[in-house]
């Protein structure tokens, strides 16, 4: 097992690559997980600073204004888009609402009647949208014979409901923990791809060096045995790296493992690792240039992570971006992390796709290997 032993030795001497990615990743995971795993058990509605521009000045629009005034603080604003955007950007206003001239007509026709300026990144945005939607829903419910019953609406809106969050049967009911595991494992796809290609790739450039390769070829070590030991070495190094990240999640959030579908994450990351190992095999058979390998490590890991929804949720990504992302295993890996899985069958398509990629990478790698040998 000389080849295997020395493969591991050389891989461990490239520990700089492995450690730098791992340490940064774990530090970020610790920071990310330090505050958001507490269970949410109540909901408090806060008063927001909002501006209202009423171009309709009808009974209905005044009723809406009164309702919003009760719930929020009203600030001054003016009908100037630049000015409004500046108020939102500077945080002077949480939202600016513009009621159109034909407000009544649009409400009757159930058209989008109100224009809201707000900061989508803030959760407060949802609150003001909820309040307006609630008002409009109630108004529509009382519409009869061309009139609204504004008194009834006011009564209904004034009623308060005590909300208590009840634990459901679903295992993944602790949103904070679920999100932490989701983000943690989503980001492992980035580090695993970067480390595999860089660390294993760099070791392989040494072993596939033309001159060192000649020495191996004239030795009495059988080619098949040599390859077996090399692949075993790759598998061991890859296994160790993936294990570090699985253990990392256990060390950081071990006490919450029972609250998430941990098996889903482990199976998914193991399958994904195998797929990326096959991708590394393909890259090693395409190039022996260390600079190209380093570049591929950075570009592929960052590129596929971004496209597949690691950095930004898949829902926010454009259709075309997702179409391209489907040509990489990271997309299917992230999909499994994002979905609620009750049995293995729920994720069989995504797992199969990752394995299919592994087979394709492997076959392509073998093809390039053959071509190289013939040359």
């Amino acid at each position, binding site marked *: 097992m*000389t*080849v295997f032993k*020395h493969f591991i*030795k*050389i891989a461990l*001497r*490239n520990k700089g690559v492995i450690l730098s990615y791992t340490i940064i990743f774990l530090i970020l995971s610790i920071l990310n997980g330090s505050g958001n795993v507490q269970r949410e058990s109540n909901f408090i509605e806060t008063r927001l600073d909002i501006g209202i521009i009423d171009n309709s000045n009808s009974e209905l629009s005044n009723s809406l204004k009164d309702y919003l005034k009760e719930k929020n603080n009203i600030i001054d604003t003016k009908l100037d888009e630049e000015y409004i955007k500046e108020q939102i950007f500077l945080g002077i206003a949480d939202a600016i609402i513009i009621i159109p001239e034909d407000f009544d007509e649009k409400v009757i026709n159930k058209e989008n009647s109100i224009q809201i300026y707000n900061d989508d990144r803030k959760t407060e945005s949802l609150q003001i949208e909820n309040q307006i939607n609630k008002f409009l829903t109630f108004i529509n419910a009382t519409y009869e014979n061309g009139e609204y019953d504004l008194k009834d609406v006011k009564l209904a809106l004034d009623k308060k409901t005590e909300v208590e969050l009840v634990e459901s049967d679903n295992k993944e009911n602790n949103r904070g923990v679920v999100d932490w595991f989701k983000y943690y494992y989503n980001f492992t796809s980035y580090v695993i791809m970067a480390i595999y290609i860089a660390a294993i790739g760099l070791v392989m450039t*040494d072993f596939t*060096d033309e*001159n*060192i390769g*000649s*020495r*191996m*070829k*004239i*030795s*009495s*070590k*059988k*080619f098949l045995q040599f390859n077996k030991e090399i692949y075993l070495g790759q598998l061991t190094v890859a296994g160790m790296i993936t294990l570090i990240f699985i253990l990392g999640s256990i060390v950081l959030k071990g006490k919450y493992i029972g609250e998430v579908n941990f098996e889903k994450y482990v199976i998914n990351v193991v399958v994904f690792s195998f797929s990326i190992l096959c991708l590394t095999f393909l890259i090693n058979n395409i190039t022996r240039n260390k600079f190209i390998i380093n570049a591929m490590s950075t570009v592929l890991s960052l590129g596929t992570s971004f496209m597949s929804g690691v950095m930004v949720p898949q829902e926010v990504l454009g259709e075309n971006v997702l179409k391209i992302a489907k040509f990489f295993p990271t997309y299917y890996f992230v999909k499994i992390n994002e979905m609620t899985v009750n049995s293995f069958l729920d994720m069989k398509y995504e797992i199969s796709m990752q394995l299919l990629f592994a087979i394709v990478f492997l076959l392509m790698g073998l093809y390039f290997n053959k071509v190289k040998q013939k040359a």
Partner: protein
Amino acid sequence: MIVKVNNLVKRYKELIALDHFNMEVEEGEILGLLGPNGCGKTTAINCILSLLNFDKGEIEVLGKKMTPDSYDIKKQIGLVPQEVSVFEKLTVKENIDYFCGLYIEDKNLREQYVEEAIEFVGLKKYEKFYPKKLSGGLKRRLNIACGIAHKPRLIFLDEPTVAVDAQSRNFILDGIKKLNKEGSTIIYTTHYLEEIEMLCKRIIIMDNGKSLVSGTKEELKAMITTSEKIIVGFLNIEDETINKMKNIPHVIDVEKDDEYYIIKFENGINNLANLLEFIKENNLTYTKLHSQLPSLNDVFLELTGKELRD
């Protein structure tokens, strides 16, 4: 014969790298493969070792046909490639252990061989160093140790002293002699004449992929017409006298090289005495005069019409 190569032809598209190349190596000898850069020495070795496919010809090593799967033959072969081919991330000892481990599976025996190889190349105090910390000469020694640690019967050394300082070169050449004394047959390629003259019992001169001649140094030198060169520097000499000089017995040619004249003689005795008599008769004054026996470079020059180092 430990190696027998017959009519070997290797083409790279239009370029003929080996053109009906022939070679025979006897067990226990040091055979020198001499030729200018690009003449096909490394290609010949790579074909013999089955590292390269060839178009035509036959190769036998240790009495058997050599193929990529001839593991029983490969077990007895060592290669020291032209480039230093070691792992930068392994220490001196680990490198030797790795390459020795490709042949020797027994751990204890391997440890012993590795220690012996380290001692042999004089790298004991550098055994924990990484190659990048070694000088060019020490790297070359490591390169050799990696190729010979498993004690092969047949060793191919491909220009092992390129870009090496004088001290390391002497160390390497002494080591090669020692390996040969211990029973290894050595095939040594180089374009350094002095090394070939110092080491090799038999020499094959190559050019343009062909083996031009082979034999001992003496046999090769006897093949050419020039048997002696006398180099003289004159104070004053006229062209007419130079022409007269060509009439001295056994003189083949007189050439001017800067301020000196090179007078070439064919096989004969008293060449120097005849020249001195001519100088006296013509009242010539000389500043320098010495006699030189033909070198391998002269052999190469006469065979190919060009200098070995061109």
